[in-house]
């Protein structure tokens, strides 16, 4: 039986899980938003990683077809997205129940009218979201259940009068937390079968669609390939699904890390500092790494590692969260943007406005003042991004500077404006060094954890965990 190793990084904003095999190869990764119940966050991330592992195993079974044949590639992408919809749907059912229950307990005079409006909203947003999962690319946007629902729910509520606004917002706030904090069990096999059924309908529908010249050529090319071949793909997949779904992803050992690590339901010796894990993970992907910068939700770490990937020194921000992911979150709120929009917006800047405040809260006031004075939004955002990187640079300097090679990890490494300034300032201060940024930078801590699990930790899984983890 193949052995697998799990690393869970419970961060302040997101929880990540990575599963590796005994060659240190990543076989699955999962991510979710961190919530009040850490165990649920960790379990959801782990389950996501196990699903991802199964999809990867499935892709491996099909072999070269996935990479060479358009119909296989597209089908697998769609399958993953619709699979996510299946998970979404189950949680949405439970949110709907909870919303109805919450509203029925209200003491507002217009309770019945609120209930009617709630029903209308749900009837509007459910098919919207379904459509986006099945026909759009919602599944690949890295959005979590809470974000997906709240975005659409809020925009519906905003169109209603004030007599509904407050009670409906309250109903959402009261309902989302318990729903997020409950663990929902899914059967991989069931969900995949369901997803394939949905896809079958989708492609059948496509077959009836006529070319009207309103889309790009490649769209029709892909459409034609799918129309003619989806049945064949389905047949091939069906040959493997049962086997993949019942395959035992046996987690032999695991490590928990991240700021919430002490609260993970793991034994003490299965817990490792996120500093060591991030460094180890980054070093595994880029073996020549000597300096690691990790910008996470609420802390920034500058880490120096040796040739073995072991930490020689580190520096972290103290007493203040300015310069971390949370700062970006706060700024995004101030501007009414989503986190993903921040970087691109900042990169439209013609210059960087100087932001003096080194405090998240004060920066908010400064932003308002600058906007009032007519400063352009992209310029202010560029200044804010630059300020974050300047703080990180000071930590790097304190930890001993940048040594070749330099690897940037953490959720904030996904922000393109931050990336731009990091590259710029590292080069300005330390000259040309090799700079590594990986698309999976957010998973480095979990990867490091999984690698430690494979190496150092020689304890068995806690009693009662084994069966739960192996999904037999």
């Amino acid at each position: 039986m193949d052995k697998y190793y799990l690393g869970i990084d419970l961060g302040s904003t997101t929880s990540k899980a990575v599963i590796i095999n005994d060659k240190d190869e990543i076989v699955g990764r999962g991510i979710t938003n961190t919530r009040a119940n850490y165990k649920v966050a960790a379990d959801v991330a782990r389950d996501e990683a196990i699903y991802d592992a199964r999809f990867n195993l499935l892709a491996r079974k099909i072999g070269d077809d996935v990479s060479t044949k358009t119909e296989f590639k597209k089908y697998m992408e769609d399958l993953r997205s619709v699979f996510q919809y299946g998970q979404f749907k189950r949680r949405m059912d439970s949110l709907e129940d909870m919303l109805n229950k919450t509203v029925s307990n209200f003491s507002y005079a217009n309770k019945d009218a609120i209930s009617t409006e709630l029903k209308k909203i749900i009837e509007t947003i459910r098919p919207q979201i379904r459509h986006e999962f099945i026909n759009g690319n919602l599944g690949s946007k890295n959005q979590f259940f809470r974000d997906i629902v709240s975005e659409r729910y809020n925009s519906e509520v905003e169109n209603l009068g004030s007599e509904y606004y407050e009670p409906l917002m309250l109903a959402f706030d009261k309902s989302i937390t318990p729903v997020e904090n409950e663990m929902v069990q899914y059967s991989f096999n069931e969900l995949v079968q369901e997803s394939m059924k949905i896809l079958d309908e989708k492609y059948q529908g496509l077959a009836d669609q006529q070319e009207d010249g309103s889309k790009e050529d490649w769209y029709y090319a892909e459409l034609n390939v799918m129309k003619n071949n989806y049945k064949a793909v389905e047949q091939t997949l069906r040959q493997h699904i049962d086997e993949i779904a019942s395959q035992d992803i046996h987690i032999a050992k695991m490590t928990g890390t991240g700021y919430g690590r002490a609260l993970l339901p793991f034994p003490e010796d299965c817990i490792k500092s996120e500093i060591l894990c991030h460094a180890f993970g980054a070093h595994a992907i880029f073996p020549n790494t000597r300096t690691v910068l990790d910008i996470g939700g609420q802390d920034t770490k500058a880490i120096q590692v040796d040739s073995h990937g072991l930490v020689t020194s580190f520096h972290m921000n103290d007493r203040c969260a300015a310069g971390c992911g949370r700062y970006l979150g706060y700024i995004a709120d101030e501007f009414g943007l989503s986190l993903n929009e921040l970087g691109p917006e900042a990169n439209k800047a013609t210059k960087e406005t100087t932001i003096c405040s080194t405090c998240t809260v004060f920066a908010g006031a400064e932003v308002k003042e600058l906007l009032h004075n007519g400063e352009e939004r992209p310029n202010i955002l560029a200044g804010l991004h630059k300020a974050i990187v300047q703080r990180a640079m000071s930590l790097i300097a304190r930890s001993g500077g940048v040594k070749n090679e330099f690897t940037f990890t953490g959720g904030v490494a996904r922000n393109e404006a931050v990336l731009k300034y990091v590259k710029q300032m590292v080069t300005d201060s330390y000259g040309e060094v090799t700079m590594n940024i990986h698309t999976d930078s957010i998973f480095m801590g979990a990867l490091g954890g999984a690698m430690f699990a494979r190496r150092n930790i020689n304890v068995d899984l806690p009693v009662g965990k084994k069966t739960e983890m192996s999904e037999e």
Partner: protein
Amino acid sequence: MAQEAQKEKSMILQKEMIDGLFNDLAQVKETGKKVCYTFIPGNLSELIRTFDMLPVYPEINALQSAMRKKSGGYIKEAEKNAHSEDVCTYVKCDVGMMMKGNIGPTGTKIPEPDILLLSYTGCFTFLKWFETLKREYPNAKVIMVHTPYQENAEITPEMTQYMVKQLKEEVIPQMEEVTGIKFDEEKLKGFLRLSKEAEDWITKIFDSTKHKPSPIDAYFAGVYYIGPINIGFRGTQEAVDYYKELYDEIQERIRLGLGPITPEGEMKEEKYRLVVEGPPNWTSFREFWKIFYDMGAVIVASSYTKVGGVYDLGWRHDAERPIESLAEYCMNCYTNMNIPQRISLLSKCITDYDADGYVTNSIKSCNSFSAGQLAMMRDIEDHLEVPVGFIESDLVDPRYFSYSNIKNRLESYFQMLEQRKSLKETV
């Protein structure tokens, strides 16, 4: 004091000494003794004693207030009176205590100063501190010695001469004037002989960390051990007796193979040996210490126990050269050494005591310690290849001790040490 769980004879002796001093201070009106406020670095204990004066150390009062959870209130009081948030918290705690009636750590009132003696001016804050006190106590005489810094890593004969001149022409005559007592060199020499004796014992005591397991913690317990000489008992028979007793107790611990005593009893297993740079945090002293002993970390040497005198390299008070030796003493305190000297002293500690790591506790409001701390850390890391750790807290302001931040960093640091150890074993 902290070790309530297990009381050794030396602890009882120390408590008696401290209580005695504060009793004497409470009775100056009756006894007519003069009071000299001064600071620990470069303190002229023996000279103060020669003039029958009683010493008051404001830093000690501040740290004692912190350990009794009173510093937060005192600091607020000082801030209400326009002392900035960034000022050294020892100062604000002391100023606040004064404003609240100057009730000392043992609950008795601390008398007003007759002399404000600055015998070490390397810390600029000290000057400002006494300027503030002078405004509050206009009758006190300020005596200030300008202490040259060891810029070139040495105490030259000219530097000593410069200090001797100040001691002879400024300090001694003014002390005579305030106390009405004629300077008696023979009396001073007697104290200096006892100082040397105590200093010999102290050196042996701190050298005991060579043993494995180390019988003492040279930081968390070390700050208690240096208590008697740091609050004015250097030069007394009591101090010699205390250190002799302490030394015997430590020898017994070595014989029995015991580790250091912590507030929760004997430390069970020595896993890591560390050298610590910088003052400790006093407001959460026990929690701070606990993070270390819970992880099996023992401090085998610390710079903070050297602020009242560096004896490691062989320097001693010398009765044959009384004034010269006082002059040298003032220039020989830890924070008066230049950065390369500090690095070499701490490197020697790391090597001699076979330390696994080096940790800096950075106190932003303390200029004397903060300057050069990072450079020292880098240098030690590069030359000795020991893992270094950096944490931040404060002296006596409870608002600046973040338990979870410090614990998080130290946990990571200890795991880092563990990795290094296992790597060493496999290579």
